[in-house]
């Protein structure tokens, strides 16, 4: 028979002032299973815990009820105390008589006392049905997968690898570097983006703990935290990287010219190409969509010029598998297509360009050698109008959210313009200037004061052409006047959006995403890098728009989380998860349907012991189950029970009142 000890806390005056604790103890002592009941000023204190430990030994208690504050507060403390006394920690139940009684019935001591008694009675009844549970230990494969080789992926990979944990870094394009490699200088310090990024890229390539798999995509992920198996598709590059020296002869001789996506299509690249000079790995790939040899079987020049014989036109896509323990998703962002802004002449006026195009122009390594030029006539623009919030904060045409970085990069662009073209004049149309961040407000001030950029609060209503000039008509809301600016060039600060492939990736990984396609974090405030699926973390703009420092910080946070998972040989998991009784399971698989974590699979078991015929029953994957109990509630034959909240425990509580 159960032997329950009840320990009622005064919590100083918090409980004792509003609940007649000694009376409650006397009442509780009348319960048959209660072998010991006592009160103390602070149960959570060391002497308080000692009382519990002593009583467990002295009265051979089989379960313990602590009547004190919320279990969300001190359940762990008391579990530890119980466990130190040699009792299984899950034989502890907490009766929440502070938050649920003394603090909320301060004007009615009699009722509060009665209620405290009932709450303890319920906890005692529940504890009688408690079972010994043991922390689940899940073996861990100590290897991390980082999806995306932008700054987020690079940072996460380096941080994890520096902790001597192997990392598999998968990048979909031929080189890592991502969006940051396309930037000229970065706000608010105006240091050169490439200068700070490329050393990190080289580190990745040479790191003994990083396996870099470029030009590849993750196409499958099975398993659960600590025990994932990833399928990675290596796209055919038609260049044998182990032979290629990266001399560049092939790219020079290739006759096919294709718009260069790295430079936003401002110039051309070849069909065999490296995305940019500092690419890592610095090996070319053949663009199968444009290569004459692959399309028509004619040409083969690159193969002829390659001294190493590294060109292999017969190469096929290859699928490889890696066993990993955790995943960092860092797929970055895409740019919103400003086409809906027809009144700005997008697509009609060549000199209306996007901010990233401008960025490439002012980049020293860019297609124009660092000088902004008008795409229409190649002239250097003197008057440039920057328009912010293109797509951002625009429910009608674009998206509802703020893209967060546009205010800052537009200020940067104004400054860069001034640096490159000293006699230029910049105008910025804005809705708000959002410059929250270290040195950010000062940076915007610098753009306004040092470079004399005119900030106009208001929306541009129309852009039209007058001669070779662009007439920008807008409203200066502060003056309440319509202004019209004769501009040489207009730069649109387009919004950033998640990649279109994000939802597919999320489904593949088994995580959720929001209505825009950003991957969802487990909790917006307290778990911003975790996803709802254990062992999968988010870094950078795949989760929400953010700037480089935030991205790097989140990537390092991911690395810390991953290192945390890998800190032991096995993962410890809360044992309050579901369990199937195969005798009662009829194999209808409704639980499989409702499980939010795909934690339930099926297995075949013999119909009776030793029988050859089998039947299908549900099986719960301990590593994946989070213990929500959805399956237990839909299981009609009650074959599934949720440990810690079993039907008998809850029904015991119900009938004990």
């Amino acid at each position: 028979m159960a032997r329950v000890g009840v320990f009622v806390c005064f919590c100083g005056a918090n409980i004792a002032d509003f609940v007649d604790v000694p009376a409650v103890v006397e009442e509780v002592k009348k319960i048959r299973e209660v072998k010991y009941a006592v009160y103390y000023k602070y149960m959570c204190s060391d002497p308080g815990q000692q009382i519990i430990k002593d009583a467990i030994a002295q009265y051979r208690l089989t379960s313990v009820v602590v009547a004190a504050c919320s279990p969300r507060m001190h359940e762990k403390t008391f579990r530890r105390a119980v466990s130190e006394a040699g009792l299984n920690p899950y034989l502890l139940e907490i009766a929440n008589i502070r938050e649920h009684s003394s603090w909320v019935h301060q004007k009615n001591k009699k009722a509060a006392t009665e209620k405290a008694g009932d709450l303890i009675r319920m906890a005692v009844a529940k504890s009688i049905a408690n079972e010994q549970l043991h922390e689940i230990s899940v073996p861990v494969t100590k290897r991390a997968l980082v999806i995306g080789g932008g700054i987020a992926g690079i940072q996460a990979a380096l941080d994890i690898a520096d902790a001597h944990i192997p990392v598999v870094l998968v990048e979909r394009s031929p080189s890592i570097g991502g969006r940051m490699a396309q930037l000229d200088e970065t706000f608010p310090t105006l240091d050169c983006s490439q200068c700070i990024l490329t050393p990190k890229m080289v580190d990745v390539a040479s790191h003994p703990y990083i396996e870099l798999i470029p030009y590849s995509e993750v196409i499958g992920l099975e398993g659960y935290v600590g025990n994932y198996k990833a399928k990675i598709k290596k796209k055919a590059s038609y260049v044998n990287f182990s032979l290629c020296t990266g001399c560049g002869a092939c790219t020079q001789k290739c006759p096919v010219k294709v718009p260069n996506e790295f430079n936003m299509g401002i110039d051309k690249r070849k069909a065999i190409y490296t995305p940019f000079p500092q690419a890592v790995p610095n090996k070319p790939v053949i663009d199968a969509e444009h290569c004459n040899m692959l399309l028509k079987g004619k040409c083969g020049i690159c193969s002829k010029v390659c001294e190493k014989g590294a060109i292999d036109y017969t190469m096929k896509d290859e699928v490889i598998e890696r066993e990993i323990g955790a995943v960092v998703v860092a797929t970055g962002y895409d740019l919103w297509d400003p086409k809906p802004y027809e009144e700005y002449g997008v697509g009609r006026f060549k000199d209306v360009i996007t901010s990233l195009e401008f960025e490439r122009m002012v980049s020293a390594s860019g297609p124009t050698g660092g000088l902004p030029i008008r795409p229409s006539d190649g002239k250097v623009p003197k008057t440039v109008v920057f328009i912010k919030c293109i797509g951002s904060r625009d429910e009608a045409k674009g998206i509802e959210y703020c893209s967060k970085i546009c205010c800052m990069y537009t200020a940067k662009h104004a400054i860069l313009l001034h640096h490159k073209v000293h006699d230029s004049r910049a105008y910025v149309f804005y809705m708000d200037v959002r410059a929250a961040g270290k040195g950010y407000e000062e940076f915007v001030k610098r753009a306004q004061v040092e470079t004399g950029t005119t900030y106009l609060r208001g929306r541009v209503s129309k852009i039209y052409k007058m001669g070779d000039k662009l007439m920008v008509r807008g409203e200066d809301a502060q003056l309440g006047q319509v202004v019209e600016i004769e501009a040489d060039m207009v730069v649109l600060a387009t919004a950033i959006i998640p990649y279109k492939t994000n939802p597919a990736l999320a489904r593949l990984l088994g995580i959720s995403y929001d209505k825009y396609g950003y991957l969802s974090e487990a909790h917006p405030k307290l778990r911003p890098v975790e996803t709802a699926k254990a062992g999968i973390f988010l870094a950078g703009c795949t989760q929400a728009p953010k700037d480089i420092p935030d991205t790097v910080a989140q990537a390092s946070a991911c690395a810390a989380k991953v290192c945390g998972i890998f800190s032991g040989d096995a993962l410890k998991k809360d044992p309050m998860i579901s369990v199937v009784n195969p005798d009662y399971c009829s194999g209808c698989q409704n639980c499989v349907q409702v499980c939010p974590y795909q934690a339930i699979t099926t297995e075949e078991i013999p119909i009776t012991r030793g029988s050859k015929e089998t039947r299908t029953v549900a099986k719960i994957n301990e590593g994946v189950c989070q213990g929500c109990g959805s399956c237990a509630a839909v299981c009609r034959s009650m074959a599934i029970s949720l440990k810690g909240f079993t039907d008998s425990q809850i029904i015991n509580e119900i009938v004990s009142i």
Partner: protein
Amino acid sequence: METQEKEVKGSVQSAENPGLTAPADWQPVIIGILCNWCSYAGSDLTGTSRIQYPPNIRIIRVPCSSRVDPWFIIKSLQATADGVLISGCHPGDCHYIAGNYYARRRFLVIKNLLNFVGYHENRVQFSWVSAAEGAKFAQVVAKVTDDIKKLGPLHRYKKENF
């Protein structure tokens, strides 16, 4: 609470069995089943904020509203409860992604079924209370307690011979 201390004359009639009454100062027993992550945390916040509510509710903690089997409601009503309150996370806020969406469907059906077989519709009530809504939790409990006090003691389909 003030309402309790007010003296009410006469007696309370049971809504389902008008012949059966209870003394005017009768206090109902209400079972509250709360999800751990939102409503239980919300009820804790009610406590830490010292917001007062009627003392009739007895709270049971479950991990998620989707853990609530309609059984629990039926059994509560068979045993001592005069009413049941079930509370979970707001739709979309479920700690376990979508548990409360599944639960909501069952709740609607069981609520209607119980009413159909003769329980007053206010005997079983549901609410979404987030971890931040300590004040809302107090309001919900006050409303449920008030409703059930008006309904009087539950006699219909109670366990016999007790």
